[in-house]
Structure formats: structure tokens, C-alpha cells
């Protein structure tokens, strides 16, 4: 990654972050935002220790610290997590058309969330726990079946992913038919469309550890991921165990995806296309692809969500915005690359 690219990326992300801080339906001035930041540690401490919030918080500070800021941080984390996992999946499967839901993780998460919603007992945490557990169960089932059927075959892994994903999709359809169309069904649809409208610091706390750990791991393994992309025999000749490495990376990427989907629902496009877009100007080298996909994924979801929450008084489903912004942008990048005589990696 050249210094120019690094600077350009950081500048873009910084500008977007600044823009997002000031965008919203509730009018909050510059001074109030700076004052809010000064109160952030105190508020976070109160939330973490479950003690009452400071009584002298102004309405602007409350809205900024309890609604807008956690939503911005969560958008960055979810976008980064999905794009990062997408880049790893595509590298492991040596296929740029692979998305993080190839092993049925997303289907498992949405099924789990729907089950949690229909279950008479339990609150929202129970719903999220179900989503996470079933997402991980889907990935585990896909990998276990594939490992039993054929040692390390990528094709088998994709096929078992399709099987497991279909099973959970069928389960979801059953749950949808059982749901009250005016009661639980809208909440299930909410999960299917994905939204950050109810983002809170507790969501951030749920996603942050896995996202950070996932990034640290993939960053450390990005050299090995490059070797893995050469194929199994070259990897073995260079001292790697491709099967173990592949399963380990997929398991971790699945954990990150499950954490993201369990927190905000299914958000399409980012995991598939952001790594693809980044690859159009960095190539397939994971040394650049991993950090840049992470940054651009976060920036992209932040931009989309800022529009989704600020453009109108009502929420626009963020999946619609990611597609509307992402599709033309991606087409433009492809067009530019082709017109420059480049080949898509």
C-alpha cells in the first residue's frame, strides 16, 4: 500500500466520520458535539456499571451520546466486519464471487432471530443470542459435514454450505408462516432487511471484541492467506497445512459475520462487493486487501447509514441504500478499470 493510498483512505474515512457526526434529524451544534465528547467516558462508565446516567446531560448530549454516536461506531464496526470477512472468504475460496453467507451463517442467524422473536419468553438479548448461536451452528454444520465427506474439498464445502443454508431458509419460512402478520412478522422482516435504527452501546460491546480479535488474526495471517491463494500444493510445499488454515480462517470469519448479523440483521452487498471493489485498485494481495477492505467496508456502511437515518424523517432500509450507492460505484470502478486496459483480479 503506497503512502498516497494510505493518506487518501484516511482522509476519506475522516471526512465521512466528521460528516456523520453532524448528520441527523435532531439538530446538534458543533459546540454541543464537542461538549458531548467530553462527557463520553462518564456516560460509558455509567452504562457499563449499570448506574443511572448523569442528570445534568442536556437533550443534545443525550441524543448524541446515546443514539447517534453508538450508531456511528456500530456502522463502522459492522461494515468493517462484513467486508473483512468477505475478503477472507474470497481469499480462502479463491473466488471473488463468494460472500460471507456462502456457508449459511446469515440464514442461520436470521432463523435464530426469528425463533427468538417467536419464543414466548426472553427479551431482546435472547433474540440476539439465538441469532448468534444458530449462525455459528450453521457454519459449524457446513464445515463438519464437508470435513466428513471429503478432506478439505472447497467444492464440497460450498455445497454443504448451500445445503445448510437451504435448511435454515426452510426453517425461516416455517417460522414466518407461524408468525402473527401484525405482531412478530414485521420484526422478522426487520431482521431480513437489516437496520441500525436501534443501535446502542450494548450492540457495540457485543460486536467489538469479535471484530477486533478477527481483524488482529486476519492481519497476522494475511501473508499465509496469500500463500493459500496459490493453491493447496504450493501451500504445502511452503510449509502450510492448507486444510487446517482454511478451516481456521473460515471459522473465525464466520464468527465475525454471525456477531454482525446477530446485532443488526442481514445487510446485503458489503461482504460481497466491498472486497471486490477494493481489489479493483489494489489487486489480490491480502497485505493491502485486508486493511483496505476493513476501512472501506466501515466507511461505506457509515455513509449509507448516515443517509438512511438523515435523508428523511423516516428510516430508509440501509440495505437499499448500500445497493443504490454501491451498484453504480462498483460499475464505475469496473468501467474505469476496463477502459484503462486492466484485468479484473
Amino acid at each position: 500500500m503506497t503512502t498516497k493510498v494510505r493518506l487518501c483512505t484516511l482522509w476519506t474515512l475522516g471526512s465521512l466520520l466528521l460528516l456523520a457526526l453532524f448528520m441527523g434529524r435532531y439538530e446538534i451544534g458543533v459546540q454541543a458535539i464537542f461538549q458531548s465528547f467530553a462527557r463520553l467516558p462518564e456516560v460509558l462508565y455509567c452504562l457499563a456499571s449499570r448506574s443511572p446516567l448523569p442528570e445534568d446531560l442536556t437533550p443534545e448530549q443525550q441524543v448524541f451520546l446515546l443514539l447517534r454516536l453508538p450508531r456511528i461506531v456500530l456502522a463502522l464496526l459492522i461494515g468493517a466486519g462484513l467486508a473483512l470477512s468477505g475478503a477472507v472468504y474470497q481469499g480462502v475460496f479463491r473466488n471473488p464471487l463468494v460472500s460471507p453467507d456462502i456457508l449459511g451463517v446469515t440464514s442461520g442467524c436470521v432463523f435464530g432471530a426469528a425463533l427468538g422473536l417467536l419464543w414466548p419468553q426472553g427479551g431482546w438479548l435472547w433474540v440476539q443470542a439465538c441469532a448468534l448461536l444458530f449462525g455459528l451452528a450453521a457454519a459449524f454444520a457446513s464445515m463438519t459435514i464437508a470435513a466428513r465427506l471429503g478432506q478439505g474439498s472447497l467444492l464440497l464445502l460450498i455445497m454443504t454450505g448451500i445445503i445448510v443454508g437451504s435448511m435454515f431458509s426452510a426453517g425461516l419460512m416455517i417460522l414466518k408462516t407461524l408468525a402473527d402478520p401484525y405482531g412478530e412478522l414485521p420484526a422478522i422482516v426487520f431482521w431480513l432487511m437489516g437496520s441500525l435504527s436501534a443501535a446502542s452501546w450494548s450492540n457495540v460491546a457485543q460486536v467489538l471484541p469479535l471484530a477486533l480479535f478477527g481483524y488482529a488474526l486476519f492481519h497476522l495471517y494475511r501473508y499465509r492467506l496469500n500463500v493459500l491463494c496459490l493453491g493447496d500444493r504450493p501451500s504445502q510445499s511452503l510449509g502450510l497445512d492448507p486444510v487446517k488454515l482454511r478451516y481456521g480462517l473460515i471459522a473465525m470469519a464466520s464468527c465475525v459475520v454471525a456477531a454482525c448479523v446477530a446485532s443488526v440483521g442481514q445487510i446485503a452487498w458489503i461482504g460481497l462487493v466491498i472486497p471486490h471493489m477494493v481489489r479493483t485498485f489494489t489487486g489480490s494481495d491480502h497485505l493491502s486487501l485486508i486493511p483496505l477492505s476493513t476501512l472501506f467496508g466501515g466507511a461505506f456502511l457509515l455513509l449509507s447509514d448516515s443517509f438512511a437515518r438523515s435523508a428523511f424523517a423516516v428510516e430508509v432500509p440501509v440495505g437499499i441504500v448500500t445497493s443504490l450507492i454501491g451498484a453504480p460505484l462498483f460499475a464505475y470502478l469496473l468501467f474505469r478499470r476496463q477502459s484503462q486496459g486492466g484485468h479484473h483480479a
Partner: protein
Amino acid sequence: MRALFLCAALLCSVAFTAAGQPIELTDHRGRQVSLPQPASRIVSTYLPSTLFSLSLGLEQQLVGIGQSDRQQRFVDQLLGEHDPIAVGSRTAGLNLETIVALQPDLVLMHDKKDGIRLAAMLEQLGLAVLLVKAETLEEVDATLGMIATATGRQAQAQRVRQANLTLRNELEQRLQGVAPRHRSYYVKRDDLFSTASGEMYQHQMLQLAGLTNVAADLRGFFPKVDAEQLLRWQPQLLVIEDDGLNRPQRQLQHAGVVPLRQLPQLTLPADSLWSMPSPFALAGAYYLASQAYPQRFATAQDQNVLADYYQQIFNRTDLLPKALWP
């Protein structure tokens, strides 16, 4: 009826009602909600709570409503020039910043798990949130009382209750001695094969209208049945929720269930909103009864009962479905 009032009284426990005293309420989830004074800026986040607010004459107090509430002619007519901000929907999400920016002193929210979660977030921001549940006639009455207390509209709530009591008595009187009752099959607005189970509000409505729900033994929400099951039930008439697109009627033409095509069809008008629980939903039962047993509702006076009912609740009759206009 006494049970209804008792239920309302239990659910809506008011500790202080004297002027200047805080209003203490317990909502359907057992949450304690305190209001310093009757709410005058209200955000209703979904259609049923909007209907309750409008039935209590709170048009001008509504500062925010659900995303598609205004698409209903009934809501649009009652709001008139007043233009509350749309705050989102359950499927696309509610815009919490928009809600806070409206500075409401009361937010009405559904009582499902996602509603409970959002209520907790809004409470953290200092907003009073009432969780609303209105899936049976008893719950409708309790909810009416709760919102009326929160907004200081007890007198209007009493008017609505009185109108409902009168209409119900009238209905029971007209249907006295009807035997055997018509066996009816309830059709959901977009699917001929989705019907009302025995645990749904629509089942209650059919019973009040003097009809027997052939799917009373089913459980769940709008369960799907197949054509053979439908024929086996041998319904004598179809009660169809109209959505203006005639989808069930078209299914009926193409489904190959010939005996069903010949059955009489009673249609709940699309713009009536009688197919969902609300303070004026009893009108739906009366309307169905008048269509199912026309000989018992034959006089000119009977034709005006619903107009009187709307007049009593809303002080106007043009809110009646267009199909019932003279």
C-alpha cells in the same frame, strides 16, 4: 360488560388524577409510567395506537405517526390539515432521532420484543413510553382507558365506551334467537386460503356478528388451509377483507373450488379498518351481522345505526366507509 370495565380498571391503575398531580400508569407489560401532566405531544409509532389516539380526539396532539398511517383514508380525513411527522415503521425501523426531536411527552409503542427494547432506549432519553396491546375486545377497552388517562381524555373514552355498549346491546337484541347461525369462512385480504383462527380478534368479530367461524379450532395467526379443507368445512358464506385489489376473488375464480364460488360473499370495506382491533371495530361486527341476516336489520332506522355510532364517537359520519354512504 362488567368484566370489561373491571379489566380496564385493573390494567390502568391511576394513582393520582387530581390537577397538578402526576399520572401514574401501569401498561400491558406491567411497566410503571409516570407523566407529570396529561400528555399533549404524542408520537404514535404504529397504526392501531394511531386509531386509539384519533378515537380519543387527539388529532392535534399527534406530532408523530407511523410511516404509512396517513395512507388510510380514515386517518387522513381525521388529521385534515394537521401534518404529523412520519417516524418510521416496524419493518424499516423507527427513526429514534426523529422521535426525540419531536419532543413528545408520550410515545405509544407496540408491546412486542422489539417494542420493549425501543421503549427502554427512549426511556433512557427521558421519554415516557406506553406499550400498547390491543388484540381482543377486552384489551381494546383497557388500552382505551390507559391512553385516555395518560392524555386526560377520560370523558371522550367514556363516550366511546357508551357508543360501543349501545351498539353491542343493539346487535345482541337484533340477533336474539338466530339459529342456526351461518357457518362462515374468514378470508384474509390477500389470500383466499389464509383464515382467522380461534385465537384471533377476527374470530371474536364473527361471533359478535352471529356467525360461526369454521376455523375456530385452528390456532396461530392467519393459518393457511388448503382447498380440500375449506370444502370439508362446508361454509355457508365467505367473509372477505377487501383490500381494493380483489385478490381473494380472483383466486376463487382460478382455484377450481367451484362450490365456493357460489357462496354468498360479505366484504369488509377496504377503507373501514374494521378488520383490526380498534375502539370503533365493533362497527365491523354490526355491519357483518346486517349483511348476513338482512331480515333482522330491515328498517330505515337500522340503516342509520352505524352513522349514529360514528357521530357519537367522532362527531361526523363521513368517516364511514364509502360503500355505506347514502
